[in-house]
């Protein structure tokens, strides 16, 4: 309904600025962050908001990313809202705490400005940082552009804090390509954001006193809880199963929140972003900004008589197997684009999940393309080539999953 959509301002912002602006509007209680290229603008811009008094957020300029996430764990454990942002080596340094944050079921929101992992040290875009965290129990949402980075940063809180979820969320945006690129985006009024995210509602647990207590470190000490306990082999497994249940619930919640956000903003989001797939014979599948490029590639292919489409996966964790299978129904060839590698694995990380989603259920012939590592550019022509290659593989027949490299010298 156009009448329910709130009036929005058009502003020119880079991805980092958009994330910082969204956080300003959400106004979490604590932001603890450490700078790393290409996330630095988020931290710098937010510090300006703090210095000017535009937000009452406590900004903790921690001395490392490990401490950044540790401080967020502490803050979220009190029942407060906590945010941080990082990339690449910073995310790698936080790795230990990622698992703790998700296992303690703390709805922390973190922006990841996707950047390649060292060595060699490289400050440009690829997805290896987020991929290294894909088993950590965090929800991972990949954004295509600055608008989506803004929108998803707002939705993330509702997803994370949903009573059936209670998991931390990574909002991923491509380093430099999105983070430092100026785009004109629509921003919601402050009030609309505040209304949408509301206040953090706490779930209840029954602790050691046998009483229902809000899940937090009680500032009045009346309902004390002990968090971060030690489990032997007789209990650990069950907690992990609980986390998986929460991930499954997130599949529904991500769609619900995306729908509600759509009614507010006019921009609807879900687990996937399907482009011209209704009658497609070949699909390009991938994450992030290069799927925008892929949409151009699909349009050009269509003009050339190839029925091409794009499946951009937005929610990588939880992996939307059902939505993926539904979107690719009738498609006979798929080019799965991986902007990361899993060394020694049978294919790229996204490809492995895609193959598993279709295992035993037939489905399209899939070809894996590793591309864009360390910020290697990918063009419309490259993506058209990939689609054509995938079609050829389907037509000629292939054994298993071919893994190819795009734009690699030698």
């Amino acid at each position, binding site marked *: 309904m156009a009448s329910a959509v709130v009036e929005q301002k058009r502003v020119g912002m880079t991805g980092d600025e958009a994330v910082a602006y969204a956080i300003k509007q959400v106004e979490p209680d604590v932001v603890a962050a450490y700078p790393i290229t290409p996330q630095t603008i988020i931290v710098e811009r937010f510090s300006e908001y703090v210095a000017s008094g535009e937000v009452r957020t406590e900004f903790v300029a921690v001395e490392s990313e490990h401490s950044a996430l540790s401080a967020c764990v502490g803050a979220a454990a009190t029942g407060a809202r906590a945010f941080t942002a990082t990339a690449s080596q910073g995310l790698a340094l936080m790795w230990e705490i990622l698992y703790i944050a998700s296992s303690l079921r703390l709805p922390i929101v973190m922006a990841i400005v996707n950047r390649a992992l060292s060595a060699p040290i490289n400050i440009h875009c690829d997805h290896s940082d987020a991929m290294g965290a894909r088993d950590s129990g965090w929800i991972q949402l990949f954004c295509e552009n600055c608008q989506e980075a803004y929108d998803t940063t707002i939705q993330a809180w509702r997803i994370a804090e949903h009573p059936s979820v209670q998991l931390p969320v990574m909002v991923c945006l491509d380093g430099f390509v999105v983070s430092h690129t100026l785009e004109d985006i629509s921003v919601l009024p402050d009030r609309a954001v505040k209304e949408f995210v509301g206040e953090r509602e706490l779930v209840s*647990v029954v*602790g*050691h006193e046998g009483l229902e207590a809000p*899940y937090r470190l009680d500032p009045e000490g009346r309902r004390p809880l*002990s968090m971060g*306990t030690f489990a032997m082999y007789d209990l650990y*497994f*069950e*907690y992990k199963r609980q986390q998986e249940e929460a991930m499954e619930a997130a599949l529904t919640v991500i769609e619900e929140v995306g729908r509600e956000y759509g009614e507010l903003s006019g921009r609807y989001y879900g687990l996937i972003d399907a482009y011209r797939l209704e009658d497609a014979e070949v699909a390009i599948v991938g994450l992030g900004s290069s799927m925008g490029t892929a949409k151009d590639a699909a349009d050009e292919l269509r003009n050339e008589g190839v029925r091409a489409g794009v499946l951009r996966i937005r929610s990588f964790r939880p992996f939307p197997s059902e939505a993926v299978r539904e979107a690719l129904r009738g498609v006979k060839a798929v080019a799965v684009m991986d902007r990361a590698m899993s060394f020694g694995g049978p294919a790229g990380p996204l490809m492995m999940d895609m193959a598993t989603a279709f295992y035993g259920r037939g489905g399209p012939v899939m070809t894996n393309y590793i591309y864009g590592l360390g910020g290697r550019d990918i063009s419309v022509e490259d993506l058209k080539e990939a689609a054509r290659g995938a079609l050829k593989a389907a037509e000629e027949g292939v054994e298993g999953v071919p893994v190819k490299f795009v734009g690699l010298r030698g």
Partner: protein
Amino acid sequence: MSSSLPGWKELPMGGVAFRPSTDVKTGEWRLGFRPVVKEEKCVGCALCVVFCPDMAMGLGEDGKAKVNYDYCKGCGICASECPYGAIEMVSE
């Protein structure tokens, strides 16, 4: 390890503890010696209460030291520290 532990659907979220440690009777750890308070020598200075690492020593209504044998590990700090020789480690 109890086999009657709750399943994953019943356990409280996030691994919060769900029983107080008072259920763990560390007094069962004693290796054959227990502290005995000789009340006629005890003046109720409370040093033993303060020094007990296990909160197994208290002051009774009469102001004298009282041992809680459910939790006393028999470390002997109380006997060692009592300035009045009012506590003796006795074979159980």
